[in-house]
């Protein structure tokens, strides 16, 4: 074995894009020609397991929500592969299911930069000596990828699989289950996917944006990746911003200020009462001094999850909004696990009551009790995500909770006066 070095041989003799405009640097609807012209050809023959060290040095974390260190996932897959018979070559899956209703960045990425995602998938596959490769996305994302695959000759091993439009379909074990067996439902996590995933093979599931970053890291190295962002959150990330002014897709530096993200999306922060960060499994925060980073103290940082920022205008009741979301989450439970199947509807009922006129102070305590009861008790983190959302709503909207319990509503009164 040759000794491991932290950088692979430089094959691409050009600079990576400067600034935060990286993933869409080849422009809208980028075809193969624009892609190669912008980024250079993918140095695939130079890629092997040493990529793990490069990705580790880059500090890249998963952009699908959990922000797990990407190099660890790749390394675990390589470990599971060594010693395994040849027919157990790892399976690598590009996950673009994006079930989160407030997220649209993966669809945009697949539509406008499909070649970067394909490059990333081929790169990851080389690093783990992968066999079968899949791109998993909803119908909206597939046509552009299909066109992109038809333009190139290095990607014949990639199969496209349609993901259903459900909230939970992008959970990693649901992705594997959906591709292997049909129903996109999470499976029990007793064994890691890296050891035993698709048909019992070592399986690496990476979000499509994560793969796109990896395609650039393979070209320009880890130091380039770290020229944006901070030490605790290097690189850039896509952010789906939604709110009263409509939807905006941004690519921002890691560790970005929440207020800056909002103003980049032309949202007037003075008309915003709270922001939901991280999506329906995320956290309500108010006002805007937070930074978006997967790590850091909760008092100053908020985890971006899959890069979701949703601004709540002053005129809307945050408790009503949260009650609607929890109702949706209860509906989207895959109804496999008792605590999730019964607990989420119970939470939704109590929160509804609090949002729409209930005045019993026990309602708040009951929400806390149910949240604690469901947390950590499902095959996936759906109950945990719902519980986190509810807890953050009770905190961020504590004034509204007090008003509701006293029989008023800060918003309705505001409207009346």
């Amino acid at each position: 074995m040759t000794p491991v070095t932290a950088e692979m041989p430089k094959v691409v003799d050009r600079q990576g894009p400067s600034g935060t405009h990286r993933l869409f640097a080849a422009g809208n609807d980028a075809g193969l020609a624009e892609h190669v012209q912008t980024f250079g050809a993918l140095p695939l023959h130079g890629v092997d397991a040493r990529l793990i060290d490069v990705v580790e040095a880059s500090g890249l974390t998963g952009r699908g929500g959990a922000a797990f260190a990407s190099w660890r996932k790749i390394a675990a897959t390589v470990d599971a592969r060594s010693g395994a018979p040849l027919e157990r070559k790892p399976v690598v899956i590009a996950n673009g299911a994006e079930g989160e209703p407030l997220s649209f960045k993966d669809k945009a990425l697949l539509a406008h930069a499909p070649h970067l995602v394909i490059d990333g998938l081929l790169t990851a596959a080389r690093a783990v000596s992968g066999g079968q490769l899949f791109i998993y996305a909803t119908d909206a994302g597939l046509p552009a990828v299909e066109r992109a695959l038809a333009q190139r000759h290095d990607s014949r091993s990639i199969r496209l699989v349609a993901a259903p439009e459900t909230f939970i379909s992008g959970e990693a074990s649901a992705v594997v289950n959906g591709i292997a067996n049909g129903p996109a439902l999470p499976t029990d996590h007793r064994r890691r996917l890296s050891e035993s995933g698709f048909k019992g093979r070592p399986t690496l599931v990476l979000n499509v944006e994560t793969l796109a970053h990896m395609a650039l890291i393979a070209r320009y190295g880890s130091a380039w990746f770290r020229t944006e962002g901070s030490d605790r959150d290097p690189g850039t990330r896509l952010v789906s911003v939604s709110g009263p002014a409509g939807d905006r897709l941004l690519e921002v530096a890691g560790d970005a200020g929440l207020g800056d993200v909002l103003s980049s999306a032309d949202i007037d922060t003075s008309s915003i009462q709270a922001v939901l960060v991280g999506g329906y499994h995320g956290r309500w925060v108010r006002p805007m001094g937070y930074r978006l980073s997967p790590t850091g103290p909760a008092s100053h940082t908020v985890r971006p999850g899959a890069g979701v920022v949703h601004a709540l205008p002053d005129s809307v009741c945050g408790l009503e909004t949260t009650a609607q979301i929890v109702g949706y989450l209860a509906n989207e439970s895959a109804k496999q696990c008792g605590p999730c199947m019964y607990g989420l509807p119970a939470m939704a009922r109590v929160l509804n009551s609090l949002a729409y006129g209930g005045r019993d102070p026990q309602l708040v305590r009951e929400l806390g009790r149910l949240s604690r009861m469901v947390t950590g008790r499902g095959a996936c983190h759906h109950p945990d995500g719902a519980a986190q959302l509810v807890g953050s709503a009770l905190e961020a909207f504590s004034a509204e909770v007090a008003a509701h319990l006293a029989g008023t509503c800060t918003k309705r009164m505001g409207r009346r006066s």
Partner: protein
Amino acid sequence: MSETLHIDWTRCDGRGLCTELLPTLLDRDDWGYPLAKRATNGDRSNVAVRPAHSEAAREAVYLCPKMALSLANQVAGFGQ
């Protein structure tokens, strides 16, 4: 040697046989599903089993009608 009792929530139907066999480890929640009395590192799907309860835990694994329970870190049967 410490063991953990893993609950596969996708299988468990919440009739509560295990909670009867392991009353020191498991409560029932509002709907009858097993609820770890103490969570190690917040993990409530893998319940720590002390040696004193090892026998009862094994019985629960064996008797669970849904095969929803399993023990991890069992004493290695082969090799050592």
